[in-house]
């Protein structure tokens, strides 16, 4: 057996239960996603032209109902793929160092290896590869499912199911792995570290999400109110003032917009009389949209941000492992 294979086998053996659980869960989820995707494709193929949501065709009711049920199930599966990276990362990351400290094996391993960083690299490498491979599987199957549920979806230019499909799953999993790893090394006890890591991960991912919202807003453009922009991400409504500025309803009216009236033409009026006659037009309601063409840019940006945080977590772990006692 080559050295690399032996290293992989030993590393996997040390976390075999977590890896078995995660592998079974990931493969199970991927298989179900493929089955549901195939069901959706089969319905679409059997009833061509029936599934356009903008067109009603007589005789399509049963097919549409069936497709809606599959879509509902598929959407739920995509929620699972959203949570999977967090669960996988923490379940593998927390015990990687914490269990060694908990069980006292770090004392032997850290004296045998001489370099704790070398030891950490060995332990981490194969686990990180396992996380990346399993999440790549989920990333691919989730995209396939999304495509089946929405045949008009342009995978690389559409914000639909953003963060629940594709390569983002991998980097989110690696960040969760890094957070679990760092806190496991710092706390040195598995259960407390897992609980803290869950809290910290939720906080980090929430902060990243809020940051991305700001980032997305900076790239948004106004679009006509109520008109669907295929592939775009709607961030909310704004009022376009005659001078070109975009303001929120609350910005326009200090009373949180309660005196604002919106006409059927989408115009915003500052007042309306008892008969419903609108007056004092102020601007036009518009939707704030991030065009689907920006999707690859934002996936790349978020991946880079999460990847940098994951590397930072790994570096923090290395620092802690170098400094801390093995007990």
């Amino acid at each position, binding site marked *: 057996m080559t050295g690399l294979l032996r290293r992989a086998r030993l590393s996997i053996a040390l976390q075999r239960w977590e890896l078995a659980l995660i592998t079974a869960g990931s493969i199970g989820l991927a298989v179900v996603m493929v089955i549901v995707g195939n069901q959706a494709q089969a319905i679409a193929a059997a009833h061509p032209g029936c599934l356009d949501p903008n067109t009603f065709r007589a005789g399509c009711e049963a097919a549409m109902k069936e497709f809606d049920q599959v879509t509902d199930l598929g959407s739920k599966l995509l929620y699972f793929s959203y949570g999977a990276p967090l669960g996988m990362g923490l379940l593998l990351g927390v015990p990687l160092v914490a269990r060694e400290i908990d069980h006292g094996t770090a004392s032997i391993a850290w*004296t045998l290896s*001489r370099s704790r960083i070398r030891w950490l690299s060995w332990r981490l490498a194969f686990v990180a590869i396992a996380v990346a491979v399993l999440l790549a599987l989920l990333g691919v199957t989730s995209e396939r499912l999304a495509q089946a549920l929405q045949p008009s979806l342009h995978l690389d230019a559409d914000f639909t199911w953003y963060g629940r499909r594709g390569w983002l799953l991998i980097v989110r999993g690696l960040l969760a792995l890094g957070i679990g790893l760092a806190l496991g090394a710092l706390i040195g006890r598995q259960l407390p570290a897992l609980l803290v890591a869950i809290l910290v991960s939720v906080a980090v991912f929430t902060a990243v999400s809020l940051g991305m919202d700001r980032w997305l807003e900076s790239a948004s453009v106004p679009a006509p109110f109520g008109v669907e922009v295929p592939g775009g991400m709607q961030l909310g409504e704004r009022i376009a003032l005659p001078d070109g500025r975009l303001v929120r309803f609350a910005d326009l009216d200090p009373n949180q917009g309660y005196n604002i009236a919106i006409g059927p033409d989408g115009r915003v009026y500052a007042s309306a009389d008892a008969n419903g006659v609108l007056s004092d037009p102020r601007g036009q309601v518009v939707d704030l949209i991030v065009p689907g063409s920006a999707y690859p840019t934002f996936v790349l940006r978020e991946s880079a941000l999460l990847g940098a945080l994951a590397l930072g977590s790994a570096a923090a772990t290395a620092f802690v492992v170098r400094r801390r006692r093995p007990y």
Partner: protein
Amino acid sequence: MTDAVLEARGLAKRYRRGVWALQAIDLAIPAGGITALVGPNAAGKSTLIKTWVGFEKPTRGSAAVMGLDPWRQRFESLAHVGYVPQSPSLYDALTVEDHLAMAVQLRPSFDRAYAAARLDQLGIPRSAPARQLSGGQQAQVALALALGTRAEILLLDEPLASLDPLARREFLHVLTDAVRSDGATALLSSHIVTDVEQACDNLIVLGVGRVLLHDSVTDALATHSVSATPLPDAVASFAEADGSLLTLVRGTADRPATLEEIVLGYLASARTTSIAA
């Protein structure tokens, strides 16, 4: 410069909770032989060994392994050290053979054949998972891992504490044989004097974080006596198992002291000093 392989100069260690585990330890352990580090619980034995392994950073003073600072030069220092912790702490999920394979992965210079031969001599099945081994067998595996490093220095942190008498004897036999044949230096900490008496060449008695005695076993036995009556310039008096008082002196008295009596006398002297202080 000295020819000592393990050194401590004014070494002191205080833990966060404010307890001084070691206080101004001065030691120089020369190459070769087995040195017993004896003392009661909380005497600082583990802390001293862990400082030489590089697990603990000295609060004051310095420690050295082959002239290297084990904290700052951990990588270089550990090249000279094989370590056996207090509990064997093996990987439950791995077989004995896996442990040897892992040792090779972690330390390419690990002598797998040598460690395997040691285990085979003891009839320890290498295909058995570690969790299925007895406490004595696990301790032997931990010792084999330390011996397989072929390090010049073996640091053993109370490896006998949890073993039954037969397993303790076997462990000491393997250790003695390995040290004698390889010319290594071993520091074996224990609070059971009778166990180490046969195996060790040198004795360090540690109490309340200080070195109370550092001598060869032969010299210690030759220069200490006990008396049933209190004597001036005695090391200390201590109670025997039957309640009678025995006084340890350097020099000649009623009869030569046993190693256990020497250790007890010095530990009693530390207690007296501590109370007086």
